């Protein structure tokens, strides 16, 4: 059976800048497929091309069997889009927003009213449906933003960093919603730069950086890329020259890789227990005092670190 999404050598350039560089992947029906990468990696550009908002510079993709370059209207009937920004009308109520967007998807009459009620229940805002969106909290707006994407019961839902800038409770609510939608059979393409979200939600993960898909697979398949390596995270004090210390730590035979992020140094090491004493000793020798240490088992962050030499939030 053909994949729901087939991306073939997709390229998008903005002038001399290549935002997406020849990426290919597939998404199967029923999957939650995550594109994981830092800001500016090309995630939103990829989703924009797949949702027919941007024309690819080269390559093509099919969604539900329709080409994004030659059959955009058919593709748009298959997909629902939850954009990164909250794309709602602040001066309209949640109910009016949903009715408007439902009509834009070709819905109407009693069926639309019924569906709007269902979606309001689903996102937990039925009791505040007649209030203007501008009176909502950020998390509530996010939930309506997602609700709009669900109105026409799309086969495939694109969610572009839907948890950016919201409180932990709303974030939890959104992640649970994604899992519930997937349990009900909806296929989801989810972009994020939060490794934990990709780990929690995804059937498969594509790691994207500088417009290139640098790794693709299940979490287990990806963590195998870094072998059985541990991550040793050293927390330093404000004002410490972490770059200088990272250079010093790279000279240790127990350290495979050392990267910096804010006041932290992440060390990829074969055995965290074994590498910790010499790492602390070296730090003291160089005049640095380590405030605390985290030991992490292999995860997607470590995979990204391993593949790019940078942390996800660099």
């Amino acid at each position: 059976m053909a994949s729901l999404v087939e991306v073939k050598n997709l390229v998008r350039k903005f002038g001399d800048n290549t935002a997406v560089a020849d990426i290919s992947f597939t998404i199967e029906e029923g999957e939650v497929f995550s594109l994981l990468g830092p800001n500016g990696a090309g995630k939103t550009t990829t989703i924009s091309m797949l949702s027919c908002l941007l024309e690819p510079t080269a390559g093509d993709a099919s969604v539900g069997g329709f080409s994004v370059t030659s059959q955009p209207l058919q593709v748009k009937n298959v997909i629902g889009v939850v954009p990164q920004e909250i794309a709602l009308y602040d001066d309209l109520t949640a109910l009016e927003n949903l009715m408007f967007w439902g009509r834009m998807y070709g819905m109407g009459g009693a069926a639309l009213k019924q569906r709007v009620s269902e979606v309001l229940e689903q996102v937990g805002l039925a009791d505040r449906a007649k209030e203007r969106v501008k009176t909502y909290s950020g998390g509530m707006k996010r939930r309506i933003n997602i609700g709009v994407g669900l109105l026409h019961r799309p086969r495939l839902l694109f969610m572009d960093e839907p948890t950016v800038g919201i409180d932990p409770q709303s974030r939890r609510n959104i992640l649970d919603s994604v899992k519930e939608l997937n349990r009900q059979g909806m296929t989801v393409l989810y972009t994020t730069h939060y490794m934990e979200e990709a780990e929690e939600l995804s059937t498969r993960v594509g790691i994207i950086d500088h417009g290139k898909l640098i790794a693709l697979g299940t979490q287990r398949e990806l963590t195998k890329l870094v072998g059985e390596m541990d991550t040793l995270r050293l927390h330093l004090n404000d004002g410490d020259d972490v770059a200088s210390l990272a250079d010093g730590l790279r000279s240790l035979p127990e350290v495979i890789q050392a990267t910096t992020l804010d006041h932290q140094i992440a060390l990829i090491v074969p055995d965290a227990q074994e590498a910790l004493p010499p790492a602390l000793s070296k730090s003291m020798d160089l005049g640095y005092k380590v405030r605390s240490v985290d030991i992490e088992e292999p995860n997607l962050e470590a995979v990204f670190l391993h593949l790019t030499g940078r942390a996800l939030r660099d």
Partner: protein
Amino acid sequence: MSKLFIIGFKDLRVMFRDRAALILMLAAPFVLTLGLGLVTGGFNQSTGAVSNIPVVVVNNDDGMLGQSLANLFASAELNDLFDVTREPDAAAARRLVDEGTTAAAVLIPAGFTGSIIPDSQTGQSGDLVRVEVYRDPGRPVSSGVAQAVVESFISQVETGRIGGQIAVEQLLASGAILPADIPQVVQTMSHGPAGQADRDIIQVRNTATDAAGPNEIDPMAFLAPGMAMLFLMYTVSLGGRSILDERREGTLARMLSTPTRGSQVLTGKTFGIYFVGVAQMMILIVASSLLFRLDWGDPLAVFVLVLSIVAGAAGWGLLLAAVAKTPSQVSSVGMAMALLFGLIGGSFFGGTITGPLGTLSKITPNSWGQDGFAMLARGDSLVDLLPVIAALWIMCFVLVGVAVAIFNRKGMLQR
């Protein structure tokens, strides 16, 4: 429902929820009209402080009603209200109105009395003749007062006639006249104009559109449409801004991610600008008719003219959105455009600008609109307005065409 209307009505709803926009769209034109009206004296007439209205009366009727009507205008009761001139010649009286010397001419034709009161010898009324009120539409309030006095007079005459009819019935009931006389009496009472509406005895005419001399225009007649169009230009710039706002806020992209073509979204947004503009103009026109007692002319022609003016203005709003890079740029340029167009389009002072500036003013909907409203105020018909309407729609299509080309070149609505 078509996507165009869905988007257009959404914009209308969003715009009318914005209090700041409402103040600028609806309250500001009223305040400015009020302020400028006070400064120019345009409200002296409409606030009840009407006095010394120049009226010329021509009485060619040798009967008692004609004399009574003529005397009414010169009566002590109306002495402060009217400055009456007697003139024997109807053509000369009309000319005085055409030249703007007087606000209205009351023309009482020969045989007026005889057409209403049956002859005492024959019991027959003469053929229907009408009192004519020849008005200067540039002075709607003053000439309207003169017309109202004539209507009131005719109404009283009619009341007297009906009273007479009732009196005959009472005489019959009391035996004062015999039943055999009833057909004769009824024929006498019903002959002539009896039973016709008062208005049938009065003919109201406005001055000819090609009046020779420049009229003294009532300031309200150009201030109200001028201010309405000035702020219409601001409204269409707000509409244009909404396109860039939607692009910035992501709702434009979201619309394009639904099964909707870019051209549909752009047309829908244009409909939105249009709906808001038409709503604004119609609200201002209806409200000024009620509050300022301003007679805008034939309602159908006014409506068609409004549709055309807003079309021309919407074209400018769309072009502004197409060339601007940011919403704030649209706001600042839009405000400048509204003021500039108002200035050269005659919104502040009425009349027609001549010379190069006059030619330049023809790029503004204000100028064409001002001409159109002036024509309607002079009593012109929808047919007379056709050149103005055509010019405004041509302006709309040209500007929208250019805007679409720019939008396409920018790739804003490519899918």
